[in-house]
């Protein structure tokens, strides 16, 4: 029991300190605006209080419940019951609530004394303090905050026990059984296995995809387009990293080559070539693939992290070259290239954001087709063998260099296609579109989605490029949340959002309690 209380107090202190930081950057207010988007209005209307305050309370309450759940977590097998969880949660809640209450009280008193807090803490305007005090006077407001967080912590402790206890396990089992009886039902399986059913489903899907851009507004089509381009890039990098197991951190270089090809060939400045978009598209793709092969020949002998850093260097070289003075007359320099040519179809311009969504969809469809065909081909299996163990693959007669080159070239070609579409859609490309962050983002798309998995890449692109677009309010805190989510994701779901069956098995077959099995894995991975 004492151990549980000590744990609760420690957790509470951590949560309290983090909470103070969040309050000082007025994060609860920002989180409130997101919550407002998520919760429908009619539910909010049920509560007789100011919706702004309700949203803040929901945020603080969720954090409090989290604090309580982790304060009341299972410390050892024997003494894990309702009471210890409750006490641990309450202890965490108490410390957390004390800190929050004290902070709000101090802020309130200072405001009452007409101290201009925002001179010292830019985010804390009087209006924000008023929200923190829940529209009450200083004493009542901070007391309410205290009681609220305390109760949330205690509740969290109890909830935590409920969710790890047998009650929740049996619920989960029931749900799984119900799901299995539905999906494993031979009748249903048979129906869906029929060709007609599959064709009908695909047709439905395609019709849906064709329909979306028509109803979505300009902004949404732009967002869908951006996500789509990241799906394309992700599919390309998926071949390099997911299939062939080559860590490429300079992927943006090929993207840049595609973008600059279309930019320089179609734009009025700096060369005034004004070629047709459809002519330049294959040129951009081929040039990118050629660059992939050219870079690949010298560097693909390296393994693991050396390959990563060399490709990273190559990406940076391309970016700096695009910025540099020497090539300004050729690439437009730091200011980039504007008025890039856009596609026409049957003599009519086909270049609005809506039209581009279709072009990008077609690009994705081609990429998915290529990926599926390659995966089950001889080449795909050679890649897989190489990824699992290069030496053995070589011993089995696989020409590793040529297969690596192929992976690099195909990945680069898809990146080139993405670059062409990106530059043409934005009608602009400049060095800042092609910095290291693009490579890192695309790699994150592949890993967060699930390495080697096609639906995973799509899910990853939506999660990493779509969500931040939607969460515009948190613009200021976007990177903070994104970083924390990446870490959390890697800890709790390293196989990605939508993993391939094999990878999720690989990651979960090793018993986490047994260090030896994991140890064997890492030593295999040594370069």
């Amino acid at each position, binding site marked *: 029991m004492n151990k549980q209380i000590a744990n609760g107090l420690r957790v509470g202190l951590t949560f309290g300190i983090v909470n103070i930081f969040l309050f000082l950057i007025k994060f609860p207010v920002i989180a409130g605006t997101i919550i407002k988007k998520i919760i429908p209005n009619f539910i909010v209307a049920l509560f007789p209080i100011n919706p702004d305050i309700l949203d803040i309370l929901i945020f603080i309450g969720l954090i409090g419940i989290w604090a309580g759940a982790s304060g009341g977590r299972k410390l050892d097998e024997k003494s894990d019951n309702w009471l210890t969880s409750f006490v641990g949660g309450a202890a965490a809640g108490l410390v957390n609530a004390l800190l929050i209450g004290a902070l709000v009280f101090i802020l309130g008193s200072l405001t009452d004394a007409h101290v201009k807090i925002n001179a010292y803490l830019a985010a804390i305007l009087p209006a924000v303090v008023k929200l923190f005090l829940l529209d009450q006077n200083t004493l009542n407001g901070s007391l309410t905050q205290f009681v609220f967080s305390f109760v949330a912590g205690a509740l969290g402790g109890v909830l935590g026990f409920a969710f790890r206890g047998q009650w929740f396990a049996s619920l989960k089992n029931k749900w799984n059984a119900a799901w299995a009886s539905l999906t494993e039902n031979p009748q249903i399986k048979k129906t869906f296995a029929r060709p007609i059913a599959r064709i009908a489903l695909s047709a439905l899907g395609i019709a849906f995809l064709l329909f979306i851009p028509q109803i979505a507004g300009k902004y949404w089509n732009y967002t869908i387009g951006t996500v789509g381009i990241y799906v394309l890039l992700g599919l390309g990098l998926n071949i390099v990293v997911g299939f062939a197991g080559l860590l490429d951190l300079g992927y943006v270089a090929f993207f840049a080559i595609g973008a600059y090809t279309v930019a320089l060939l179609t734009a009025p400045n700096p060369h005034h070539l004004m070629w047709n978009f459809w002519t330049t598209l294959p040129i951009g793709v081929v040039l990118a693939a050629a660059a992939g092969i050219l870079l690949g020949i010298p560097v693909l002998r390296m393994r693991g992290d050396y390959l990563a*850093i060399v490709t990273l260097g190559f990406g940076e070289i391309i970016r700096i070259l695009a910025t540099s003075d020497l090539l300004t007359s050729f690439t437009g320099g730091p200011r980039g290239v504007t008025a890039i040519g856009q596609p026409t179809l049957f003599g009519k311009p086909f270049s609005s954001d809506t039209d581009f969504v279709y072009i990008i969809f077609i690009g994705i469809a081609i990429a998915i087709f290529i990926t599926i065909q390659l995966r089950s081909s001889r080449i795909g299996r050679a890649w897989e063998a190489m990824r699992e163990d290069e030496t053995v693959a070589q011993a089995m007669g696989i020409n590793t260099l040529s297969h690596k080159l192929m992976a690099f070239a195909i990945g680069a070609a898809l990146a080139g296609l993405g670059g062409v579409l990106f530059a043409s859609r934005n009608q602009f490309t400049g060095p800042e579109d092609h910095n290291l962050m693009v490579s890192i983002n695309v790699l994150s798309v592949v890993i967060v989605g699930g390495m080697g998995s096609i639906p995973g890449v799509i899910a990853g692109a939506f999660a990493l490029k779509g969500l931040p677009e939607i969460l515009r309010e948190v613009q200021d805190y976007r990177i*903070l949340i994104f970083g924390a989510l990446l870490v959390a994701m890697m800890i709790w779901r*390293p196989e990605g959002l939508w993993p391939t069956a094999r990878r999720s098995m690989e990651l979960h077959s090793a018993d986490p309690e047994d*260090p030896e099995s994991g140890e064997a894995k890492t030593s295999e991975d040594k370069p």
Partner: protein
Amino acid sequence: MKKYLKPINLMELLRPLGQLIVFSLGSAAVLSIIVLALAIVLNNTAAGDKIFAQLKVSLFAYTVANLPQVLVDGLTLGFVYAAIALGYTMVYGVLEFINFAHSEIFAIGAFVGVEILIALQNAGLIGSGSSLFMDYVFLILAMLAGMAVAGGAAIAMERIAYRPLRNAPRLVPLISAIGVSFFLQDAIRLTESLTTGQFNRIFPTFGNFDKRITFGKIPMGAAELPFSVPIKSFIVIIAAVLMLVVLNYLVNATKVGKAIRAVAQDRATASLMGIDVNHIIAITFLIGGALGGAAGLLYALKFTRIDPYVGFYPGLKAFTAAVLGGIGNLTGALLGGIILGLLETFAGSYLSIFTMGAAGVEYKDIFAFAILILVLIFRPNGLLGENVTEKV
């Protein structure tokens, strides 16, 4: 009592000094010879004529006259890179993954140190009228504080974001590290903008760090070029050398160091020999983080202005340096850092003159990466990396 009075292993104290001197002199000599040879070749071309028209000296004389300044600047930068690179390489040696967030640890060290100095300046303790002795004391204190916070942050980072992933496939901790890097960058930005909404900081002016010591004049044609080194360059070099020597001693001549090396070599066996692997890994992060933090303050001292993204490029360069020297190898990181610093400064100073302004300063980064790629093509395991034969 005897336990604490172990004789100091003098050899281990002197060896890194010797290495540093050899590496510095060696790479400086090689680069100087290359540059001088180039100058002789280019002397009679258009590049030489242009310099002659401007300054009335031959290109060769110009190159020679500027050489000492370039060498000192290059070494200063090189030692900063080396100190950061050691953090990367130590973590890589033990855990075999690229700690992308090390550049943010560097930034944390810089910000903590600079914030303390700004607070001291506002309190009137440093700045105009303060004694020189106290200025140095406060600088050292700020640096120690930066090291402590950066080391603590590194330990926390390891505990939260890397330890749960110890046995995961290698890309997983890499992504986690990228996540930590984003998170810390923004956390620094938000913390720094708490007070005024401004997140840039300027290293306060105090002490005699900006003063230059003049070593005499170098004749360049009819004119004379003063050769002077700012005091802060000396501080950077001395601090970096001290840290490198202490680190080397720690790793090669103490019990903790032995444990670190054992864990790096074989984690499972080390734990069978009674070494607390988690503890040792935490210590490795502490040391790497503290070094990074100190390097951060040195960087702030040298370049004055810092922002939350300040760690990104030095971190990238330092990582490049670590790979150049052979990652996982402490001596290699030292050598890589020195070479990269010198290379960058040489390229920055001479490239635009040799190419008649066509390729400016911004090409120094291209140069650094191109050399890296070249070295790795011919020595895929880095300059000092051992050739690991793979077990089948």
